[in-house]
């Protein structure tokens, strides 16, 4: 396993695109978060609403780049045929798959941490001085939101890896993942029945998972923060299981 990990890490660092996608994740996340916080109206009493969630809003965009990176890790090998070289070097397919997942988790954890810390810092700088209500990691719910957002990005990466391993084609995989993330919220907007709307938000990977970012008015959420992240983890686990089983069963 450690040799397979070393190989996957070498693959990752010997082409430029993963680094650019990770830097892009950080830049997009921080930029969108900063943009969102800069348009909010603040008074002396505070900014109204959830400033933590607002400053972390950039993950709506950043997650797409994480998803693309995760898809390319495996589908890039299928499109070139390099997957056969990989499986010749490491014939145990579960090991190859685990090595890819661990490498992805590592790089997304680093980029995701940079992205959320950058977003919080940008939020602190942009929002007016709120004294003891300022964004701070010493605040329990904020820390949970920040840490949880990094986990959320990792789970989106793993979900994408699983989907791409099952689907194999880059474009189709990216379509499936982005559809899963963004189309469900759009559909839920068009549904008038509030019960159905809440159900969709409870089970969709993005809306459920991003409950982890909410720090105010928790009672109005369709699903609690950690349970929501658990739903996203369930999606990721299902995708990894499907991808892993297909990788083991299919001819390469």
């Amino acid at each position, binding site marked *: 396993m450690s040799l397979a990990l070393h190989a996957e890490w070498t693959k990752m660092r010997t082409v430029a695109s993963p680094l650019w996608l990770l830097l892009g994740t950080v830049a997009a996340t921080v930029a969108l978060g900063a943009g969102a916080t800069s348009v909010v109206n603040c008074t002396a009493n505070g900014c109204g609403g959830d400033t933590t969630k607002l400053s972390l809003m950039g993950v709506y965009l950043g997650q797409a780049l994480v998803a693309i990176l995760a898809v390319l890790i495996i589908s890039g090998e299928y499109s070139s045929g*390099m997957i056969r070289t990989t499986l010749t070097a490491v014939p145990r397919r579960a090991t190859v798959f685990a090595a890819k997942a661990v490498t992805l988790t590592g790089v997304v954890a680093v980029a995701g941490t940079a992205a959320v810390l950058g977003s919080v810092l940008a939020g602190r700088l942009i929002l007016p001085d709120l004294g003891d209500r300022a964004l701070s990691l010493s605040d329990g719910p904020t820390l949970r939101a920040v840490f949880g957002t990094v986990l959320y990005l990792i789970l989106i990466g793993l979900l994408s890896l699983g989907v791409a391993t099952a689907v194999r084609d880059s474009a189709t995989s990216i379509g499936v993942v982005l559809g899963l993330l963004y189309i469900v919220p759009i559909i839920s907007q068009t549904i008038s029945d509030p019960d159905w709307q809440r159900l969709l938000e409870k089970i969709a990977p993005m809306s459920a998972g991003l409950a982890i970012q909410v720090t105010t008015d928790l009672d109005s959420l369709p699903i609690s923060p950690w349970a929501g992240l658990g739903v996203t983890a369930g999606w990721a686990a299902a995708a990894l299981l499907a991808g892993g089983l297909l990788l083991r069963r299919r001819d390469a």
Partner: protein
Amino acid sequence: MFAAPDVHSLAGMEATIEVSGLRKSFGRTVALDGMTFSVRPGLVTGFVGPNGAGKSTTMRVILGLNAANEGTALISGKPYHRLRHPLSHVGSLLDAAALHSSRSARGHLLWLAHSQGMSARRVDEVLELVGLTSAARRKAGGYSLGMRQRLGIAAALLGDPATVMLDEPFNGMDPEGIVWIRGFLRSLAAQGRAVLVSSHLMSELEDTADHLVAVGRGKVIADSSVADLIGAASGSRVAVRTTAPQDTMRVLAVAGATVAAIGRDTITVSGLAPDRIVTVLNEGAVPFSEVSAHRATLEEAYMELTRNAVEFRAAMPTEVAR
């Protein structure tokens, strides 16, 4: 020419591929239909047959990439997935284009080396060996097909394996590259390695292969040493070079020989001894420049070999079209 290997340790190893009764279907298409043969150390074994005969599928099954429906493929007595550090047992090249186009040749070999616990030093050795050192840091996407074949061969040799398996390595090579690969394959076998090379063109394996496994429609049609094949195909025929082929054929046929034109100025003769041929030609005042024992080319030997193989003829597109 080969840098690192020590021949003595290789000679003691059992460097054999053993394929036994492989069957494999893709949907309704039968790709392998009881494929059975083995590859021995110290020899270049040519794996030949028309496109679609099952050569690549067999190699993929050997490498554990495709699962066979029946039968076994063993390397040194073990299935591929049971090999520890597989690249130091079998080096293979299936598809030279299977690269990430923006990764450098060195980067490609580096991840392969790391997957086997090998260092960057070995990477530089094999790059030197195939003559890619100066291009090592360029993106592989910019390589010509010939350079990619060299890179693929470097990858196959990375683990200094006792068995080397190459699928159509001559494809896309320029004449210089073809000569280079031939010499290279010879030197690998001379070091005691088992070498399996597939090709759909017999002429590529001329003077390279020691042994031939000819396949058609997913099974072996002939499995024989090249020397025996060529000997059998040559028979006791005599080649006559002449500027007057029509006259030559006429006088020799009258004298009772069986004649056939095999080139613009060359005729093969059977049924007459060489000294008798010379006499007949002199008596007929027919000019000739050479009378020698005929040595069949590998291509002729192969055609001879497959002439009676129904499976093979049925697999030939021209036969199917009739």
